Structure formats: C-alpha cells, structure tokens
C-alpha cells in the first residue's frame, strides 16, 4: 500500500530525512515514532506530496489523506464546510457518511471550526481526511496538545476504523506508548534515520532501545503508576 525507498528530504543544505525506507501493507496500522525534530512530519508531508523528496521513491497504491499535526482547521468556516473541502479532489462532497460515522460532528456541523475544543477539532480533521475517500490515512501527532481521555477516544476510533473497515493507517506519534498500544508494527526514527523497526511489543521490550530513543516506555509506565 505504501512504500518508501531510500527517501532523502532536504531543506536547503540541511538534510531532514536521510535514506529512509518504510513499507506498510494494505489494512495494516503502523507507527512511525521518534523524538521532536526526527523528521517524522517531513516524511508524512512528502507522502502527501506537500514537500518534494531530494532522492528516493515514494509509492502509494491508492489515494492518501492526512490528519495534519495541529489539526489545521479552516477556523472561520463551519465544520460542514471543513468536511466538504476535504473532498476537493473527489466528486462526492456529501458528508452524510462521515456524520453517520462520527455523530458528534453532525451535532456541531454549523459551528465555526475555530470555536471547537482541541479534541473536537481533531475529530473534524479526521472526518475531513476521510472525506477524500482515502485508501491510506496518515495521522500526524494524534495526541498533540490533547487531554489523555480525548486521545483515548480518538485512538479507539482509529483502531476501530482500521479493524472494521480495513483502513490502512500510518500513525506518526511522539507518545511512543500510545503508538505501540495502537499499532502492531512500528518504525523508530532518530535524526532523520530509521534506527529500529519491527513488532511494537519487541521494540517496547528492548530496554536499550527504550532508554536511547523512546524516552523510556518504562518511565512513561512509571508516571502512570504514580498517578
């Protein structure tokens, strides 16, 4: 479904992504994790075609849509308009199916997107991406700036979307424990390079990897225990 081969992304003389190869099979839900500035968003924006690659190839078997970092609402437009604009590239612009899928959005369809809470905006961003009828959904920083309960709801929704509809999802996430809970397989990105990949459970169990690159899954678990 998605194949990146030896992808290099540069901003002027600075290399943000250096020879990254990633593959995601149809119906899979895969995580791309790593610290801030590792190059995750550059990769997802290159997959979306928003930024060019310096070298390497990106192949998407079908259409992709992105849930961008920071939600990126059309703030002064209604939820309904935000959803309809998500279908810019396709003919079917009726959001009825999205309202059926996400009933909360139907209740706020006439509200301006800029007046919604962060969680509601993230839901609109997911709905807007789904309006494009994608085969591959790219979710950039699902949890950023959101309360844990809201993140849990959104995570459940995406997991359900993947399980019941077979939607292929690439989840780009800084919250490594969340990403590993949601996805069976993951890639770890550090300073523009893939430093580890494989089953999430195996990656999480590797103490060296956890300490070096993941900010410590155990530390995160410890924080939760303390709470």
């Amino acid at each position: 479904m998605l194949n990146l081969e030896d992808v290099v992304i540069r901003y002027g003389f600075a290399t943000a992504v250096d020879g990254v190869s990633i593959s995601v099979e149809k119906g899979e839900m895969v995580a791309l994790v790593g610290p801030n500035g590792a190059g995750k968003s550059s990769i997802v924006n290159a997959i979306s075609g928003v930024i060019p690659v310096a070298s390497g190839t990106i192949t998407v078997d079908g259409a992709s849509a992105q849930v961008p970092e920071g939600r990126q609402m059309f703030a002064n437009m209604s939820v309904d308009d935000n959803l309809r604009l998500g279908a810019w590239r396709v003919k079917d612009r009726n959001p009825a199916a999205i309202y059926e899928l996400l009933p909360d959005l139907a209740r706020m369809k006439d509200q301006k997107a800029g007046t919604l809470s962060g969680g509601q905006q993230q839901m609109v961003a997911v709905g807007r991406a789904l309006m494009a009828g994608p085969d591959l959904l790219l979710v950039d920083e699902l949890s950023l700036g959101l309360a844990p309960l809201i993140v849990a709801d959104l995570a459940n929704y995406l997991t359900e979307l993947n399980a019941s509809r077979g939607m292929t999802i690439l989840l780009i996430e800084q919250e490594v424990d969340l990403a590993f809970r949601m996805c069976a397989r993951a890639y770890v990105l550090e300073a523009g390079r893939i430093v580890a990949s494989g089953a999430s459970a195996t990656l999480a169990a590797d103490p060296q990897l956890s300490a070096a690159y993941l900010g410590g899954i155990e530390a995160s678990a410890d924080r939760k225990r303390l709470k």
Partner: protein
Amino acid sequence: MNALLIYVVSGITIGATYALIGSGFVVVHRVTHVVNFTQGTLAVFGGLISYSLLSFSIPHGLAEALAVVLTGLIGLVFAFVTIGKKGTPPLTALLITLGLSILSEGIFVTIWGQSPIAPEGLDGATIILGASIENQRLLTAGISAVAFILLGIFFGRTYLGKGMTAAASNPRAAALVGIDSRRMGFIAFAIAGMLGGLAGVVTAPFSPISFSSDLPLALGGFAAAVFGGLSSPWLTVVGGLVLGIGGQLVAGYFGGSYQTVAALVMLLVVMIARHKSLSAEEAK
C-alpha cells in the same frame, strides 16, 4: 438640501467605484497576500476598452460586458507575470504590479492617446427628492450593489469561492486537501481584474478616464481596502462609501482641490488606527 443630496448621491457612485477597486485589492490580498497595485490600471483598461468596443458599433450592454471579461483576462495575464513563478515573495510581487502599472500607462498612451476619454453612457437624469441625479450614476450604484451581492454569494455559497477562502485562511491545510493556492491566486487576480474593469466601465461615462487615471483610482480603492483591513469585502464597501461621500462633501463645500487630500488623510488615519490589526493579520 438639493446640493447636499447631489453630493451624497455622487459620493455613493464614486464610493462604489472605490469599493469595486478596493474589493479587487481585498480578493487578491486575501488569497495571495499580494497588494496588487494594478487595480487602478485595470479600471482604466475597463473604461478604455469599453470606449473602443462601443466605437466599433458593438451594442451597449454587450460592449461593457465584453470589456469586463477582457479586463478579467488582463488580470489573469498580470497574475502569471506577478505570481506565476512559484514562491514569489509578496513584496516582490507588489513591485511587479507597480511595474506592470507603469508599463500599462505606456500602452494606454500608445493605443488611446493622452486625452481623457468618456465612453457613451446612460443619458438623462432622474429627479430624486427634488435633486437631479444623472442616470449613469444611478446605474453605477445599482450595478455595484449587484456586483457586491454576487461577490458575497461567490465566496459564501460556492465551492470554488469557499476553496479560495480556505486557501486564504490556512494555506497548509488547503494544500493538504488538494487546493492549489497558486491557482486560487490566478482566479483571484482574474476576479480582481473584472471588478476593476467594471469600476472603469461604469465610471468612465461621467468621469472621463485617461492614462493617468490609474493612480487616483488605485489610491481611493486602496484606502477603501485598508478600511476593510485588506481582508473584509464588506468593510471595504463601507470604506469606499465613506471615502466617496466624504470626498464629495469636501469637494462641494471646500473645493475640488481638497478631495484627493481628504482621501489621503483618511488613508493615513485608517492605517494608523488599524495598524495593530493589520500587523496581526500579516503575522497570521
């Protein structure tokens, strides 16, 4: 009372002209962040092209409509020159529009000469509350009102209009859903061309137009657009009307030579008063 009414009505028609030109500034700036100083030039093109088409015996209505469409196409050509190269900074684009404006003056002199030209307009006058108002001025007010309503419908109700608003509101999100901001910019320039052309077409019959009319028209339109923060079409209409009516009252009671001064003072006051909000919009 009669004099006051005449000043107000003629102020409304001139204000409508400023508002049309100002709306062109707003449409382009909202989408591209470029201050398009060819707006006055486009109005001159509109007036002069309609004059030529009428002189070829093309009937009224059709000649004016064709002039507006042709001016829209000229706006599109200006767009290719101004923002055709991807990543052109707004300040560079502004300078290009100034260059195009100067270049156009040469075209005006070459094709239409230096003397002011007034295409044939609507004859006669209508008595309103005892004051005689030229029909062409009433037509200008009416057509401008229709143009603003259509503009509102375009941006508020149509998918393309909403796409243009979206590109202006959040270019990154727009790019992600597939909206090509540059293409939206081209469309904005074409719409601005039509608005400028319409301003020239309806105004020229009662206010003869020449190669040097572009600057005062652009200044008036720009002042109206600044009143609207370069982003609100409706406030631009209000700004245009305030400027038009104010200018006519100043001209009527204090002398015509103060009219441009009044426009410039208003522009200065509004720019100082709105400095913070304009800076905030730029920061966005």
